[in-house]
C-alpha cells in the first residue's frame, strides 16, 4: 500500500495547464527525487501533495485519506507532512527555538517543556545547537534551511516534502543541507524532493522521476534514469545539466 497515491492529477492556473495528468505512488520509507527543467510543473506537483495548491482534477491520497474530500481535515493531514521551501520561510519575528517550538505548542501537541526538549534535540541533529536564541536574520542561508528542516520535523511527520531546498543557497552551503537530508533518508523517512542536485539524487534516491511539460516522462532507479535514460527529452535534459 502506497504512503502517497496520486491519480490523474491535473492543475491549471487560469488557462495555463501546468499538470496534465500525473499518476504515481510513493511507498513508505521511500525517497523520491523529482527532476526536470524549470516550468515542468515539479514544484506545483509537490505543492498539490499537501494541498498548498488546490488541484483542478484527479486525486491525491495520503495514508488512505483523499486530501480533497471535504470530510478530510486538511490541517490534520498537514501535521503529518513536513514541508521545506526553497526560500526557507522562517518566521522572522521568532527566534530559532520559537520557530521550531511554535507549531507543536500552538496545536497542543506538546507542552512547552516537551517542545523545548524536542527543539534542542532537533537543533543538535542539524548541528545548530549554538543558534537556539538567534533570530533568522542573523543566520546564513544554509543555517536557515537547517532550522527550517528542524521546524518541519518538530511536528514528528511521517512524510517530508522538499521544494528545491538548496536552490537559493550559495554553493558552499549546499553540502550542509544535503547532509542533513541524507541522514533523514537513512533513518527511513518517506521523502519527496524536488531538486537540481543530480549527484545527491543519484546517491540518495530510491527512485528518480523526470518531469517535463506537465507529465512524468520517465521514472526508475537512479542508476537507470541517470545511467541509461530511455526518453529523448531525459537524455537532452541530463546532457545540459551534467555538462554545466
Amino acid at each position, binding site marked *: 500500500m502506497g504512503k502517497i497515491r496520486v491519480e490523474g492529477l491535473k492543475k491549471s492556473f487560469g488557462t495555463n495547464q501546468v499538470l496534465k495528468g500525473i499518476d504515481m505512488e510513493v511507498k513508505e520509507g521511500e525517497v523520491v527525487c523529482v527532476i526536470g527543467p524549470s516550468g515542468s510543473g515539479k514544484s506545483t506537483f509537490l505543492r498539490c501533495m499537501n494541498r*498548498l495548491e488546490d488541484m483542478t482534477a484527479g486525486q491525491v491520497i495520503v495514508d488512505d485519506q483523499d486530501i480533497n474530500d471535504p470530510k478530510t481535515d486538511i490541517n490534520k493531514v498537514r*501535521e503529518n507532512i513536513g514541508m521545506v*521551501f526553497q526560500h526557507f520561510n522562517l*518566521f*522572522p519575528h521568532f527566534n530559532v527555538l520559537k520557530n521550531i517550538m511554535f507549531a507543536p505548542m500552538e496545536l497542543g501537541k506538546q507542552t512547552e517543556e516537551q517542545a523545548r526538549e524536542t527543539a534542542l534535540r532537533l537543533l543538535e541533529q542539524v548541528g545548530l545547537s549554538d543558534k537556539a536564541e538567534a533570530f533568522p*536574520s542573523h543566520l546564513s542561508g544554509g543555517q536557515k534551511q537547517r532550522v*527550517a528542516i528542524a*521546524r518541519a520535523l518538530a*511536528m514528528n511527520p511521517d512524510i517530508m516534502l522538499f521544494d528545491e531546498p538548496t536552490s537559493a543557497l550559495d554553493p558552499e552551503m549546499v553540502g550542509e543541507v544535503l547532509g542533513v537530508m541524507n541522514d533523514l533518508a537513512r533513518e527511513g523517512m518517506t521523502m519527496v524532493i524536488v531538486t537540481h542536485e543530480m549527484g545527491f539524487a543519484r546517491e540518495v534516491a530510491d527512485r528518480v522521476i523526470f518531469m517535463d511539460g506537465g507529465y512524468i516522462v520517465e521514472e526508475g532507479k537512479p542508476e537507470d534514469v541517470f545511467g541509461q535514460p530511455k526518453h529523448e527529452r531525459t537524455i537532452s535534459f541530463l546532457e545540459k545539466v551534467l555538462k554545466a
Partner: protein
Amino acid sequence: MKTIRVLLFTLSLLLLVTGIPLGLESAEAEPATGKVYQIGTDITFAPFEFQDVDGKYVGIDMEMLEAIAKDQNFKYEIKPLGFNAAVQALESHQVDGVIAGMSITEERKQKFDFSEPYFDSGVLMAVKEDNTDIKGYEDLKGKKVAVKTGTEGYSFAESISSKYGFTIVPFDDSSQMYEDVKAGNSAACFDDYPVLAYGVKQKNGLKRVTEPTKGASYGFAVSKGQNQELLEKFNAGLANLNANGEYDRIKDKYISDEGPGSLSRSELMKQSIPPLLKGLGKTLIYTIVSLFFAFILGLIFGFMKVGRNKWLRGAATVFVDLFRGIPLIVLAFFIYFGIPQALGFKMPLFVAAVLTLSLNAGAYVTEIIRGGIESIDRGQMEAARSLGLPYRKSMMKIIIPQAIRIMIPSFINQLVITLKDTSILSAIGLVELTQSGKIIIARTFASFDIWLMVAVMYLIVITILTKISSRLERKVRHG
C-alpha cells in the same frame, strides 16, 4: 467568537448614531415647562453674534433674543453653527429658528417665514485711520478697493466701480479685508454697515468716511409654515423692545460711539491662549475618538479585503471606494444635514463629526491594513499552513504581528492627517482649534496673531507625532 465581537462593534456604532439623538430628543421635549426652542446662529458675525472673552455668546442678536424671550416668556437654546450651516440646519429642521443677521430676501422667503425686520443694514466705506486724502467715492479714481465676497458691500462696489473708476479686490473674510487696507494695498474697503461700524469701534485701524447706504433688512427666520407661535412671540417681543427703548440701547452698545481700546499683543495672547488650548484639546479628543472607530472599521473591512470570500471582499472594496471618493466636507454636510433631513431626526454635532471622520479615516485604515497584510511574503502563510496551523491561527500569530510593524508608520501618518482634517469640520460648526481661532478673530480682528498661534499649535502637536513616528520606524527596521 470573532463574529460576535464584530457584531457588537457594529451594534455599538449604530447605537452611537441613532441611540444618542433619540435620547436627547426625548429629554428636550418636556411638556410641563414648555418647549425649548433650538435657535441656530452664526459664530463669527460681530456685532450680531460672537463670543466674548469668557466664551459667552454676545452681540445684538443675542441680547435682543434674550430680551424678547424674557418679555414673551419662552425658553431657547443657542446653537452656534456658522451662517451657512445654520441656514441648512433650518432647512433640514435641525433647529427651530435662525437669528444670524440674515438679510430678508425674496429667495429666502420661498423657504422661510421671516419676522418683522429688526435692523436696516447698508454699505459703509472706510479708509485707514490716518488717511486724509479720501473723503468720498470721487477720490477713489484709479485706486483699489477691498470688498468681501457675497456681501452687500460687494454688489454696491460693483455697481459704482465704473462710475468712479476703481478696481475691486475681493476677500473672503472681513479681517483680511481690513488688513489689506491697513497694509496700504487697497485705498478703501466697503463692508456691511454694522460689521464695519463694530470693527471701527474695536479699533481695527480704520475710520468711517461715508454714511451707510440704504440696504437690506435683517430678520429672524423659521421654516415656512412651522413654529408660527415662535414667530408671533418674536414679533410681539420686538415691538415691545422698540417701544420701551431697550432695542436702541442694545444696538448702541455695539455700534454707536467709540468703545474700549484695542488689546495689546501680550494681553491678546494672554486672553486667547486658554480658549485655543481648549480648542486644541477638543481637536485631540475628536481625533482620538474618530481614529478609535476608524481602526475598528479598518480591521473589519481590512480583513474582509484580504479574506477568501468574494462577496465580503466586494463589500469592503465598495466601502473603501465610497468613503475615499467623497471629499470630507461633502461627507460632513451629507451626514449632518442630508441624512437627518431625509430621515427626520436630529443628529448631535459630536456624533456627526466623529462619524464623518471615522468613515473617512476608516477607509484609509482599511487600505493600510490590507497593504500591511499583503506586504508579508506569501511563503509565511504557506509555511504556517504546511505545519498544520489553521488559517486564522496563522493569520493572528504569524502574519499580523509582522504586518503591524509595517503598518505603524502609516497609522501615525493617518493620525496626523485626521488631526488636520478635524479643522475641515469647523464648516459644520464643530468647535475645535481652527474654529476657536475664528471665534477669537471675529471679536478681536487680530487675524495675524491668532492664525499664527493656531498654526504653531498644530505644528507642535504634529511635529511631536512625526518624531514619534520616525522613532518607531527606526525601531521596526532594526528589529
